[in-house]
């Protein structure tokens, strides 16, 4: 028997997650290289200018990557899919490396050069992967995944070449590891529309995502316009991921483990999966960022390292648990 949450229990659980999120955010605001006492919370300069935007950005990045992971696992019908599977990370990395190598320094729509180029190249990569996979108007999931792998290999070669030619190893490497240390209010404001639009699109396509659980052909006989749905959702997931990558670099595992973990908890229904993953992703990222800034304080460990250190073993644990429960 599977234990299913009733509607009320579902809302209560979501409210509980929201509560945990607020708590983690509060702790994150107080702790850091400078510890702020709760009494000075409202008048602290550090809090308003540095910590608050950073914590909010961490939460938004967590939300973007988690929802994007759920969506891509759903439309590609592949449990290994994560936000980076269609070449976004590779594209973003090349973009950032080009920008760093050229020492570019410009601002578009309030976004500085590295995030802007990373964003642009991320989307370019997905566009290339999608176009390459399209045969007779149809992009099959397997072809998409394989094209993503091929593009990632190609992009990684370009990335290595850029590093060797320019010798900006440290700056590029630091970006690749992912970090929220340069978070600003500007970042927060640019990312919010992606979170709202992307998250909303994913949520309102949860019916289609659910129908796709039965396979592509069954979804068609259930009236789903599979091709359009896939295009819209890939676009939404790509914009969400590109936004996250542009402000935080490559943070792995969030978009992979959160959907798996939540699926084990609440089942495969996307209407539950999407909001629960969103909250869990936010909590996870805020907590990981807190650890990254405090554990070796005053030194800061890139959050990507923390996520991989915790994420990889946790993912293996989830896999094992799934296999044991499947028996």
């Amino acid at each position, binding site marked *: *028997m*599977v234990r*299913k949450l009733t509607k009320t229990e579902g809302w209560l659980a979501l409210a509980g997650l929201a509560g945990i999120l607020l708590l983690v955010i509060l702790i994150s605001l107080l702790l850091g290289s400078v510890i702020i006492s709760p009494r000075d919370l409202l008048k602290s300069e550090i809090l308003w200018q540095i910590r608050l935007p950073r914590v909010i950005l961490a939460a938004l990045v967590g939300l973007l990557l988690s929802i994007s992971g759920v969506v891509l696992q759903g439309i590609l019908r592949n449990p290994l899919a994560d936000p980076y599977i269609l070449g976004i990370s590779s594209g973003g990395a090349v973009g950032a490396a080009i920008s760093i190598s050229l020492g570019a320094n410009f601002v578009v729509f309030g976004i500085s050069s590295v995030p802007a180029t990373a964003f642009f190249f991320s989307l370019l990569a997905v566009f290339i992967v999608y176009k390459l996979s399209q045969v007779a108007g149809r992009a099959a999931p397997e072809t998409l995944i394989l094209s993503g792998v091929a593009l990632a290999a190609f992009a990684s070669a370009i990335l290595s070449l850029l590093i060797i030619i320019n010798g900006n190893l440290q700056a590029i490497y630091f970006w690749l590891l992912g970090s929220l240390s340069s978070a600003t209010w500007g970042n927060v404001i640019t990312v919010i529309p992606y979170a709202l639009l992307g998250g909303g699109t994913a949520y*309102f396509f949860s*019916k*289609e995502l*659910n*129908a796709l*659980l*039965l*396979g592509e*052909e*069954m*979804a*068609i*006989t*259930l*009236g*789903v*316009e599979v091709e359009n749905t896939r295009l819209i959702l890939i676009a939404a997931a790509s914009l969400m991921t590109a936004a996250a990558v542009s402000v935080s670099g490559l943070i792995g595992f969030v978009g992979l483990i959160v959907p798996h973990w939540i*699926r084990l908890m609440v*089942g*495969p*229904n996307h*209407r539950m999966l999407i909001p629960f993953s969103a909250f869990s992703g936010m909590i996870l990222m805020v907590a990981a960022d807190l650890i990254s800034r405090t554990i070796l304080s005053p030194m800061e460990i890139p959050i990507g390292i923390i996520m991989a250190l915790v994420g990889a073993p946790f993912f293996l644990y989830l896999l094992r648990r799934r296999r044991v429960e*499947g028996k």
Partner: protein
Amino acid sequence: MTVVQVEDLVTGYDRKNPVIKKLSFSVKEGHFVGIVGPNGCGKTTLLRSIVGLLKKFHGTIIIGNHKIENLSRRELARRVAFVPQLMEPVEGFTVEELVLLGRTPYFDRFSFENEDDYDAVTWAIKELGVEKLKQRSIMELSGGEFQRVAIARALAQEPRLLMLDEPVSHLDIRYQVKICKLLKKLRAHRSIIATFHDLNLASRFCTRLVLMKNGELIAEGTPDEVVTAQNIWKAYRIKVTIQTNQKTRRARYVLLP
């Protein structure tokens, strides 16, 4: 009332070498039509074409009063439901959640399931006699139970036409009979088309049969009209004699020694 009408249908995967080569038949409301014929004769292809999974090259398919090409996928899904030979079980879903997926063609973009949808789910589950399994996980069901759930999912679409591909071929004989009896009951207020391997089983339960070979029609009519030694020779190249079951009055073939 005619639920589906197929005229001069040519379809398949390759225009030059179609699987279905000019086939016509129609199905009236309240009928349970069995499609039979040797392996590779195009039974599944025919089904896939009527449920909209395969484009036709020529001919017409009329669902109710509409040509199939004039119906959107959603509109088609509200009229025709499909149960594939093997549906993928969804890990983590309960029976009820799986059946609810059948309501997908009725959902609007910005709203989710309402009372009507739950009523349809409850009704479909009851029609298939799987009330007791409602809260069970899909993964725990036996083959026969799962097949009933798969049919309930299709029935929740409230289709005028229910199409099933080999609904009983992977089940034991107890479930073969059970599913056939259920389908026979379900044909009221709608029509059912199913492909069969077992000609005798189809003859026993279907109200009409369509016998095909190489994408062409060999015979169409009541089981007695279709199950004849001559037709079976034409379709399968085996010699049989026909007996009529005294109780059911249905024709069945017996292999000659």
